[in-house]
């Protein structure tokens, strides 16, 4: 139907950028051709539009593709261009149709249009003379942003200064060609934050603009006035798009780009975005930030191989923080360049979700740098970027924090303990130092320094406190633990600042000087006095069972003094893999290949010689009980004195059973100090407490004596000492107090000598001797033997047979005595019942042991032959 007229001169007008706002020219589609983009599968239609007189190339926005497919839009259709832009790409003018309406689908060709040749279709540079759209002159039609090259004031800057923002030093690295970018309409130079206004309009157009087939590099779109927001529909700005990078003219064929936008092929002036705006879908980005911490270049090895890695944290002027990680070659590349405290411009890294277990920064993402990433140092100082960002919480709030959460705190160090070496849960030794930190909330918390912090900041703080100064300590990334109330500990990436120059620090110092000093602060950490003695927890073997050691989540580490009573000789060792994995040998059990070689499953290798490692099981006993323990290589060697390999060869190759037995026998009945790791484990549905020997030491008589002396001392001071001239062991621990004189009640405890003629008294007393004596055979069944107990230097009576078995010399027992009338001599009393060993006996036993030990000393010193154990 020729009823619809084509807008005359439309093509020329469009091409020249003269179409006014709101004008929607009607043109005829002279041709429609499908173009396949190289790297994406989207189809794009290229068209020739005609106004009857002239024709111009055009590209159809993909959302309009449907029209073509359906056939609504076809060759010779008449359409009304609702939204379009005209751009120059590679010296050719292209009309990009964002929105159109098909007025007539089927039509005849109208006129004989010629290809419109706008001679001045120049590249992006300075606006062609004819259209001197100067920077400040917004495009004629808001709807028709025609900027062919109309680059504005900013452009020249940009163009000439290809990729340089004035304040930025050039990023000169290779162009990445693979990402899609949000283009950016920087209005002039990209400074960090002023792009905010721009994106709102741009993204849409940028989308549209982007829909150019890749054969056309984009001219810079300095489109400030791009298409009406109304046509947003299809355009959704990328999460934080900040416009397109400016495209200075490039002669090279553009890299392919996806639907999103033009691809920067070079370092267009980087526009800096806040770290908080970074996300994986962001196209090109650059951040300007200061390095707040730099990690060590760490080597690792995992099943996939070895590598090295290092990380550093960045902070920008908006307070955003993010961690940057580099692996292997990239790590090498950048490790030396990065310095803490300096400001850098970083771009072309990839963004991935942050690994929260390592990364405690407040950002969901982490940057991973690749070889094409760019790091530019900023030579001038940027004071808008803080040196370090803290989020200090007052101490009283720390109490409410979850275990293992990270926190920053600042406070006054009110006390500090010297650092001590302790054994960690996994057996390694490290340094630990604790201090109390107090702040204005009136509460104090225990802060623990681990490892190197002890020797550096710990020492410094100690010196300061010793000299009476109470310094301010700020901690970044301390971990809250619920060990003894709530306390804070350092982790690898913690940072400590002593007397820092922060306003909070000054405030704190003032507060402290004024009132804090005198205020007694409540600690949210309980005092841990138990941990003072080098963490050596001495237990007896029965305590393992009684106290349920090893039942909690973590294993218990105890020290026991015990004697080896039995060694299991079958399977005393296993064949182990000798290969190194990282810096430790693999040690996994290897399988015999049958041909003399051994194969390790973990390392997946075979080798001719394997290691032999101990896996000894033996039984140990002390005065309270016995248990089975397992010793591995180190413990085994310590105890047996020979390596597993030697022993193995001895037994299996040389078949020297005699010598083998000799070695084993040699260790029996020797007393050792064992450091045990006690843990409950599940073996096919049943829970068993397993003890493993971590360390085995010979008992040093001297130190052991002192230990025992201390123990005795402790036991003595616990007992209220009841002395009546007689050495009665009347202890109150768990028992009623001693009373003297005549007491009628049955359950009172008396000293032995003070009972006269009282029946049925309960005594707490000590057996000195057990004599088996026959009593008058007429009275008693001839087969019974009745034991006599000599108690406390006085004979006390005859006990019933059933008591005999329970009573041993030096056993402390409670006896119910039925006493004949005597004059103080208890002969003739009858022990009615006895109850067993009471704790007080331990002190006796300990004293006995000590005596024995003292006896040992000379023999040990003289190096005499082995003394039989107690």
């Amino acid at each position, binding site marked *: 139907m020729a009823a619809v007229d084509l807008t005359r001169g439309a093509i020329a007008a469009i091409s020249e950028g003269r179409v006014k706002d709101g004008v929607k020219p009607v043109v005829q589609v002279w041709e429609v051709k499908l173009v396949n983009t190289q790297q994406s599968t989207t189809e794009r239609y290229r068209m020739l539009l005609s106004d009857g007189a002239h024709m111009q190339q055009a590209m159809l926005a993909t959302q309009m593709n449907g029209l073509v497919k359906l056939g609504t839009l076809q060759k010779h259709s008449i359409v009304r261009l609702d939204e379009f832009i005209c751009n120059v790409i590679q010296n050719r003018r292209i009309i990009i149709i964002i929105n159109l309406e098909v007025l007539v689908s089927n039509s005849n060709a109208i006129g004989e249009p010629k290809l419109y040749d706008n001679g001045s279709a120049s590249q992006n540079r300075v606006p062609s003379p004819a259209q001197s759209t100067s920077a400040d002159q917004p495009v004629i039609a808001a709807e028709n942003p025609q900027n062919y090259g109309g680059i504005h004031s900013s452009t020249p800057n940009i163009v000439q200064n290809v990729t340089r923002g004035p304040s930025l030093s050039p990023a000169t690295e290779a162009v990445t060609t693979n990402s899609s970018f949000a283009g950016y309409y920087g209005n002039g130079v990209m400074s960090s934050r002023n792009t905010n206004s721009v994106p709102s309009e741009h993204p849409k157009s940028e989308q549209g603009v982007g829909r150019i087939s890749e054969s056309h590099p984009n001219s810079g779109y300095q489109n400030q006035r791009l298409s009406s927001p109304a046509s947003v529909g299809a355009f959704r700005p990328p999460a934080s798009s900040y416009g397109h990078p400016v495209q200075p003219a490039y002669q090279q064929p553009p890299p392919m780009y996806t639907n999103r936008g033009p691809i920067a092929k070079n370092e267009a002036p980087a526009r800096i975005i806040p770290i908080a705006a970074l996300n994986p879908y962001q196209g090109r980005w650059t951040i300007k930030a200061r390095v707040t911490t730099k990690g060590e270049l760490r080597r690792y090895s995992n099943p996939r191989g070895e590598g090295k890695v290092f990380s550093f944290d960045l902070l920008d002027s908006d307070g955003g923080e993010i961690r940057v990680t580099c692996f292997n070659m990239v790590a090498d590349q950048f490790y030396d360049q990065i310095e803490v405290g300096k400001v850098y411009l970083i771009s072309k890294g990839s963004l991935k979700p942050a690994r929260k277990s390592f990364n405690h920064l407040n950002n969901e993402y982490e940057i991973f740098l690749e070889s094409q990433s760019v790091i530019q140092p900023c030579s001038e100082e940027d004071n808008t970027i803080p040196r370090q960002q803290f989020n200090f919480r007052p101490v009283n709030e720390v109490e409410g924090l979850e275990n293992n959460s990270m926190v920053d705190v600042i406070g006054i160090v009110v006390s500090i303990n010297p650092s001590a070496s302790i054994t960690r849960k996994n057996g390694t030794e490290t340094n630990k130092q604790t201090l109390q930190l107090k702040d204005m909330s009136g509460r104090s918390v225990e802060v623990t320094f681990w490892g190197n912090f002890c020797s550096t900041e710990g020492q410094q703080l100690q010196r300061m406190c010793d000299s009476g100064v109470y310094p301010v300590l700020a901690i970044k990334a301390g971990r809250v633990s619920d060990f003894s109330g709530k306390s804070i500990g350092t982790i690898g990436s913690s940072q400590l600042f002593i007397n820092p120059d922060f306003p909070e620090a000054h405030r704190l110092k003032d507060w402290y000087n004024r009132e804090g000093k005198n205020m007694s602060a409540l600690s949210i950490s309980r005092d841990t006095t138990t941990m003072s003695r080098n963490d050596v927890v001495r237990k007896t073997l029965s305590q393992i069972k009684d106290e349920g050691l090893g039942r909690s989540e973590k294993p218990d580490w105890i020290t026991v003094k015990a004697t080896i009573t039995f060694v299991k000789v079958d399977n005393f060792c296993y064949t182990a893999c000798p290969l190194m994995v990282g810096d430790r040998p693999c040690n996994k059990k290897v399988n015999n290949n049958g041909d003399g070689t051994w194969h390790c499953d973990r390392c997946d290798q075979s080798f001719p010689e394997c290691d032999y490692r101990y896996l000894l099981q033996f039984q140990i006993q002390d005065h309270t009980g016995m248990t089975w323990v397992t010793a591995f290589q180190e413990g085994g060697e310590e105890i047996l004195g020979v390596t597993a390999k030697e022993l193995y060869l001895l037994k299996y190759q040389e078949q020297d059973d005699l010598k083998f037995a000799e070695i084993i026998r040699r260790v029996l009945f020797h007393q050792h100090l064992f450091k045990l790791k006690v843990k409950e484990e599940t073996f096919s549905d049943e829970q068993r407490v397993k003890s493993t020997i971590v360390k085995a030491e010979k008992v040093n008589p001297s130190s052991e004596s002192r230990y025992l002396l201390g123990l005795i001392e402790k036991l003595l001071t616990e007992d209220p000492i009841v002395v009546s001239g007689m050495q009665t062991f009347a202890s109150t621990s768990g028992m009623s107090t001693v009373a003297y004189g005549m007491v009628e009640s049955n359950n009172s405890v008396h000293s032995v000598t003070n009972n006269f003629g009282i029946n049925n008294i309960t005594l707490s007393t000590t057996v000195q001797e057990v004599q088996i004596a026959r009593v008058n055979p007429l009275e008693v069944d001839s087969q019974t033997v009745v034991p006599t107990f000599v108690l406390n230097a006085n004979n006390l009576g005859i006990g019933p047979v059933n008591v005999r078995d329970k009573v041993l010399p030096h056993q402390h027992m409670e006896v119910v005595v039925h006493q004949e009338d005597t004059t103080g001599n208890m002969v003739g009393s009858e022990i009615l019942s006895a109850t067993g060993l009471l704790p007080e006996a331990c002190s006796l036993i300990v*004293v006995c042991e000590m005596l024995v030990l003292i006896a040992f000393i000379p023999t040990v010193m*003289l190096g005499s032959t082995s003394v039989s154990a107690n």
Partner: protein
Amino acid sequence: MDTSSPAVFVNAEILKMYLGRRVRAVIQVMRNDAGVIVGQSTDGNQITVKGAQAFPPAHFVEVIGIADGSQSIRAEICTDFGESFDMTAYNGLCQLANGKFKNLFL
């Protein structure tokens, strides 16, 4: 084993309490005179041992014998303990053995 006359663990202080009784003490040899050893007891005071052979100075010697003076012992048995000995531990033993736990020993 003859337990009729157990030797009491003594140092110089406690020695006084057991005059005429069998005692045992460890001393560090300070000097040897003819048949007499002068040594330092575990509590730091001096003890003289009569009737003993000579021992190298600075060695520790255990002396078992009869206490015949507030500071001297008439030796019956002498044993050389060598050069390293924990005096403090022994002293602690003496005190305990004559204090709270006397009945264990005598």
